């Protein structure tokens, strides 16, 4: 099956024309990409962009409606168990048993994956050390904090030495310090383990940690490149101004400077080359009272905006529940 699809034979993950429909809804609308071995590859996009559905297809949890993907050399739809033996998974929600200790959760996993008994104990020591949980190995997971649980899940995902480790929103729901520490552990494991990491995130700062990023929106991959190349591609700086009359300012920017501006997160926002040199002209010529100005070098936020026309936060603000979760949660 799917022999006609032109997979990249050297890639750790290779997807061609991957589609998933649920009834009339097209959650993933035909995506193509390749992830090189040893790479850290990020899927960046707002909630509902189709990231999780894509990852589920790659992990053999959901069958593609059309197209196909190869993971660690095996077809996801027809060689399910072969793929599963070669991948590690860390989900958004905890999948640990709270009544078992950290070590018992790991040894359960080892046996479930048929790991040879002789090497299991040493391997458990290794992964516990990577995520710095060695001294808590005998404690029940019920007593762990959110960050410790996530670290243990990452350790468990690594335990059977997978070729590809999938991390679906690995830091969602964690506080900023914990998120930062999770990334330190991930960076450390990259140094120690020969593993390809495929992750999804809707945090821009996390996407920066990837070797390459795919920007996903509304079921489609819009662009795939390194964070630096994506930012260079935007070219322009982002300027945000607070004015006495935002609507008039938008009109004035269009008429006087030929700049397209829009209100994002309550401020008039636009992109312009050499933003710092532009600010004096802006004050001189806009003709509308300006209360504050901020100029920023292009970030992945701007990359996302230049490809989709909105910021990731705009897309979330449309969903009040998500917006609330964002306010209460990290960032």
């Amino acid at each position: 099956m799917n022999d006609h699809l032109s997979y990249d034979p050297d890639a750790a993950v290779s997807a061609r024309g991957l589609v998933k429909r649920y009834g009339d809804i097209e959650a993933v609308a035909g995506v193509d990409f390749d992830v090189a071995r040893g790479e850290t590859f990020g899927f960046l996009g707002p909630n509902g962009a189709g990231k999780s559905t894509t990852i589920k297809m790659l992990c053999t949890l959901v069958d593609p409606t059309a197209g196909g993907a190869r993971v660690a050399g095996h077809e996801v739809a027809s060689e399910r168990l072969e793929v599963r033996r070669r991948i590690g998974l860390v989900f958004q929600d905890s999948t640990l048993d709270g009544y078992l200790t950290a070590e018992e959760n790991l040894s359960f996993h080892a046996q479930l994956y048929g790991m040879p008994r002789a090497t299991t104990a040493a391997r458990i020591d290794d992964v516990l050390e990577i995520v710095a949980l060695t001294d808590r190995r005998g404690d029940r997971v019920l007593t762990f904090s959110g960050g410790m649980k996530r670290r243990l899940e990452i350790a468990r995902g690594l335990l059977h030495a997978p070729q590809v480790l999938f991390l679906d929103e690995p830091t969602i729901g964690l506080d900023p310090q914990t998120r930062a520490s999770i990334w330190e552990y991930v960076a450390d494991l990259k140094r120690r383990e020969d593993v390809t990491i495929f992750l999804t995130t809707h945090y821009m700062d996390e996407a920066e940690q990837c070797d390459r990023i795919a920007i996903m929106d509304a079921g489609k991959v819009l662009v795939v490149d390194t964070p630096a190349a994506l930012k260079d591609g935007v070219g322009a700086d982002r300027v945000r101004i607070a004015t006495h009359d935002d609507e008039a300012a938008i009109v004035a920017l269009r008429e006087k400077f030929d700049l397209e501006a829009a209100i994002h997160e309550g401020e008039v926002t636009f992109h312009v080359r050499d933003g710092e040199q532009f600010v004096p002209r802006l004050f001189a010529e806009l003709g509308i009272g300006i209360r504050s100005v901020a100029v920023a070098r292009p970030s992945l936020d701007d990359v996302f905006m230049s490809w989709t026309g909105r910021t990731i936060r705009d897309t979330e603000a449309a969903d009040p529940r998500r917006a609330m979760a964002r306010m209460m949660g990290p960032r």
Partner: protein
Amino acid sequence: MAASAGATVVLPARGLRADLSAIWVVWKRELITSFRNRWRLVMALVQPLLFLFVLGNGLQTVASGSIGGFSFKTFLFPGVLATAVFMPALFSAGSIVFDREFGFMREMMVAPIRRSSIVIGKCLGGATVASVQGVLVLALAGAAHVPYDIPMLLALLGEMLLLSTALVAFGTMLAAGITQFMSFQALMQTVMFPLVFLSGTLFPQSGLPGWLEVVTKLDPLSYAVDPLRRTVFNAVDAPDSVRSVLDPGIHWWGWAVPMGLELAIVAATGLLMLAIAVWRFERIE
């Protein structure tokens, strides 16, 4: 293949060995988590003890008209053994719903093993836990004037193991389609009481009105309780007049169903439910 396998990568095992190892580890986890949750064990003992000591003593006076000085507790004892495995067996099956709600099920579902290994491991684990509970009640045989006769105790243990395996399979079959623990509990209450009340667990199946007699014969649990009761009565001194009232056996159109067939019915029902449970599990995404 060549494109994917790195030199240092040791792939997990596959095939029958992997599946047996999975059954074993799912079984082991069931035991660890069950016995760690002490309250669950204690609660499961409350109901059988109530039946034995409260109902047993309470009904003695009413029953003495037909059974004379024979202890009604002796009659109840095999039924109480059945209820002792009933609760923990269904609770164990219910923990599947619990695992699903709290995510751990996913860890098992994504593993490179057959789904049937998970179901079988779970059923054997639940049956083991339930039988251990049964053994705790079995230890009270003396209090029900049942002798500590080794062959009888072993036979009862075997029958309880069979019953609990079938019960966990039954519960697992139901649990496969349920995502919330509350729904499962409600469903269990609904199916458990008719099954228990119609099975001759708590009252003798002799001299029932015709319609009720038919219904009790349709209850699969009847065929699990009857062998328990026969095993106990074979080991105690009961006058024939008492035995015909309390231990009449199950008859189909006048034919006394042999104990072997009763046990075979329980085993077959259990296997059928296990097959349905596996079938349903393989369809969960």
